[in-house]
C-alpha cells in the first residue's frame, strides 16, 4: 500500500486531472514542482491534454514514465497490484477511467494507491485511488473501478522523477 500520499484536487471546472495526478506523484517523491510546471510539460491547453502527447512532453522534461502493458484485464490487474502492493517499494500508479454510460465525459486520470485482490468469485476486491476531481481517496468495493479502467483501455503509468 502506498503511504503518506497527499491527495490533490484539480482546479474547479478544469480538465486538469492528468497534470494534477502527475503533480501529486511528483510531490509524493519529494520533488518541488507546481501544477503550472506540470501543465506545461503535459502540453496542456484550454482543451485539456492528449495523453500520449502529455507523456512525450513529460519524458522530454526529464521525467521517467513507465507504461504498464497488458492486453488482458487479469494480467493488467496483477501488474497494477504488484506495483501498488509491493512490500519493499509500493508506488502510486496513474490510470485512466471512463464511465461507459455517461457520454459527456472523456478519460479521467486518477492515482491508484491500494488494491486488495478478490478472495473469492463473488468478491471484486478493493481498490483505493485518489480522485483529483474531488481531491479525496475513493474506496471501490463493487468492481466499478475495474469496469471503468477496462473501458478506458487499461492504461497505467508509473512516474519516476
Amino acid at each position, binding site marked *: 500500500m502506498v503511504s503518506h500520499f497527499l491527495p490533490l484536487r484539480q482546479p474547479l471546472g478544469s480538465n486538469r486531472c492528468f497534470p494534477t495526478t502527475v503533480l501529486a506523484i511528483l510531490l509524493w517523491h519529494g520533488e518541488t514542482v507546481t501544477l503550472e510546471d506540470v501543465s506545461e510539460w503535459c502540453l496542456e491547453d484550454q482543451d485539456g491534454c492528449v495523453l500520449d502527447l502529455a507523456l512525450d*512532453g513529460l519524458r522530454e522534461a526529464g521525467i521517467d514514465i513507465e507504461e504498464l502493458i497488458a492486453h488482458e484485464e487479469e494480467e493488467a490487474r496483477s501488474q497494477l497490484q504488484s506495483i501498488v502492493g509491493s512490500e519493499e517499494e509500493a508506488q502510486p500508479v496513474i490510470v485512466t477511467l471512463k464511465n*461507459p*454510460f455517461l*457520454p459527456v465525459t*472523456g478519460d479521467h486520470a486518477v492515482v491508484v494507491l491500494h488494491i486488495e485482490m478478490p478472495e473469492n468469485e463473488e468478491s471484486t476486491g478493493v481498490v483505493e485511488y485518489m480522485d483529483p476531481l474531488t481531491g479525496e481517496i475513493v474506496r471501490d468495493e*463493487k*468492481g466499478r473501478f475495474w469496469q471503468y479502467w*477496462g473501458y*478506458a*483501455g487499461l492504461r497505467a503509468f508509473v512516474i519516476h522523477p
Partner: protein
Amino acid sequence: MSAAKILTDLNSKVSPDIDGCIEDALQIVQTDVTLRPPKTANERQNGFAAWLAKEQAKFWPAIEQAIAQRLSVVPASDIVQQVYVQQVQVEVEKLLRTFALRYYAGLWVSKRMGDAVFLQAPEPQGDYWCVSLGVVNYQESVGQVILDSEGHIIEEQSTTRQQLLERLHGQPFSPSETTARK
C-alpha cells in the same frame, strides 16, 4: 395488470408501464459491473451478434423478473416475453451496441484528441456508425468518428485532431512547444 391491458399498452405509443419496463431493463444493464466490451474476433463479427446474444441471455433473468414485477404478472408468462421482444429488447440491444461502439471510438479518440473531448451515442450512417464528438463548453459537434459494424475505425472518414482544433479555434493548429524541465 390484465393481459388485455398490457397488450393494449404494447400497441400504444404512450404507456408508462412499458416505458417503466424499458427503464428497469436499461438500469439492470447499466449497473452491472461485470459488463465488458466485445474483444475477440468472434464477439465482434456480424455486428457483435454473438456478444449481443450472450449479454442479453445473461441479463434476461433479471429483466424478466423486473418486467413481471412492473406489470404484476408471473415472470415466466408469455406476456413478459412478448413485452420484452416487442418493446424492451431493441432498447437493451441499442444500449449494448452503444457500449461496444463507444469503447472502440473512445480508445481511438483518447490516443488522438484532448481529454476534454467526449463522445455522443452512435448513430447509424449507411453501412457505418457515426459517433459525434463534443468538447466541454462547446454547444455543437466538433467532429466525428466513423466505425464499421464491428467497431473498426474508418480513419479516412473520421475527424483528425488537427481538424478538430481548427474547428474549435478557427485557425490552423500549431503544436505547443515543450518546455524543458529545469
